[in-house]
């Protein structure tokens, strides 16, 4: 167990101040909005939990929420294994390692509004490489006309954009495993799979936890890329939760319901992340205990 030392708070304090400075006041302000009907800045009426009840009953919101959950789980299911595989196959040292690192990281560095714009052209059958290639292969593909195609395009765009985040985290995690571990495994004659399962995966637990949580919460709040690419369409196929929220906030000119929506949104992310976090920690602990018995 870690030693108890209350003085460690002094090391944490700067972080708490930095974050609280810009986080606590806005959050409290939004809570304040959410219980009022703001007709104009001077005329405000306290309405209690009315907005929350209205938001919870909203059918369209339920649909957007399910769409969002499906999308975020698909993102995790594709990006996490792909990111791990990529990290394992990247060269460990030499100029090749440097080159591959830079190439892999490139897609992360493009501003989100540009990502959507580029894919908008890239996916078009007449003037875009992806669309043209698919048309040449005889695939009937149109991200503007077909709901499934649009959904898959947004997913592919997210995989293209964010898998490097998972890969870089895992790659750095792999590089910090001491060589001695591998030597011991070689002496024991461990198979490649055994090395992955009993040496690499447990050592990656920390970075994987961050990767899963980050990808989950960020994909749950995805806004700019689908907004630019498909505008939420066709129909509602790619209208995810944050876009629905923005439509409400901008469309109604009333901050009250939008603030209540934001808070519920925030609580949903918080709850799901908390479940994921605890589940991953339990799996990790059980894993370590299991390894201890062997």
């Amino acid at each position, binding site marked *: 167990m870690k030693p108890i030392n209350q003085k460690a708070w002094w090391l944490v304090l700067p972080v708490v101040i930095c974050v609280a400075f810009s986080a606590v006041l806005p959050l409290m302000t939004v809570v304040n909005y959410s219980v009022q009907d703001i007709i104009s800045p001077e005329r405000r009426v306290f309405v209690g939990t009315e907005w929350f009840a209205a938001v919870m009953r909203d059918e369209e919101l339920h649909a957007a929420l399910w769409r969002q959950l499906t999308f975020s789980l698909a993102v995790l299911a594709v990006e996490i294994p792909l990111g791990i595989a990529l990290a394992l196959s990247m060269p460990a040292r030499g100029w090749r390692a440097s080159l591959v690192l830079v190439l892999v990281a490139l897609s992360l560095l493009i501003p989100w509004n540009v990502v959507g714009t580029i894919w908008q052209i890239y996916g078009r059958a007449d003037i875009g490489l992806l669309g043209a290639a698919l048309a040449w292969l005889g695939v009937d593909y149109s991200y503007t006309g077909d709901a499934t195609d649009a959904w898959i395009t947004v997913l592919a765009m997210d995989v293209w954009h964010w898998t490097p985040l998972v890969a870089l985290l895992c790659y*750095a995690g792999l590089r910090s495993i001491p060589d001695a571990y591998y030597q011991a495994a070689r002496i024991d004659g461990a198979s490649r799979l055994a090395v992955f399962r009993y040496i690499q995966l447990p050592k990656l637990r920390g970075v994987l936890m961050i990767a899963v949580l980050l990808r989950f919460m960020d994909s749950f709040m995805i806004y700019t890329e689908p907004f630019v690419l498909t505008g939420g369409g066709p129909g509602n196929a790619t209208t995810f939760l944050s876009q629905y929220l923005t439509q409400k906030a901008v469309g109604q000119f009333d901050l009250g319901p939008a603030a209540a929506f934001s808070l519920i949104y925030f609580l949903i992310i918080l709850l799901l992340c908390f479940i994921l976090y605890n589940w991953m920690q339990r799996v990790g602990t059980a894993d370590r205990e299991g390894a201890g018995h062997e």
Partner: protein
Amino acid sequence: MNEARFRWRTLFLLAYLLFALLPIYWMVNMSFKTNQEILASFTLLPQQFTWANYATIFTDASWYSGYINSLIYVAINMVISIAVALPAAYAFSRYSFLGDKHVFFWLLTNRMTPPAVFLLPFFQLYTTLGLMDTHIAVALAHLVFNVPLAVWILEGFMSGVPREIDETAYIDGYSFPRFFLTLFLPLIKSGVGVAAFFCFMFSWVELLLARTLTSVDAKPIVSVMTRTVSASGMDWAVLAAAGTLTILPGAVVIWFVRHYIAKGFAMGRV
């Protein structure tokens, strides 16, 4: 068997790189075309090669100052984030203290707020403080999502270092700052490299907060870019050129931190 595995790995890596680089190739390709060529025909290489889109950016102060503004606040943000996150991550990875687990998770919850409605309070807060349209305002606002990220990443890497190293160092008579800087930091180099790169990246591409908190003097490039969308239509070519240019600073950053990421555990005697 090793040969075959090596070949599969290389094939997989090349396939991924193809998938990753094709959209970027398309963007670079577009940046050397005219708008007319982009929209009228499918061409693998620019037929009417032009530097005009880059010239637009480099000759217009409101364009290139966007890059400078972004670099300034991103650099401030990166330095503050790493500087405050290092000691905190050490505390979380080494000690138990009152509320440690709660504070650790609370940090991450600050990344979970959907921005749309939160922008207005941010605007009010920074207006009240008189920080509007300054680089420091954006740098401070971006701490909300970068500091928790840095703490989480660094904590993960620090927990991977055996605690015996700390204890041995203290017995050997190292003071805490000297131990931390000369012994401990080199051990978690790869974590620091990744954390620094991610802080750079998230702050560099963030649009909503940066746009809300600036108007003229500190206007970031991501916000300048939105002007390519106008009533007269979309200026695809200039947007592609601007997008290509936004990749470059980050590529330089990762080129500098690559050794930190790639080498990792350099000490053999542990």
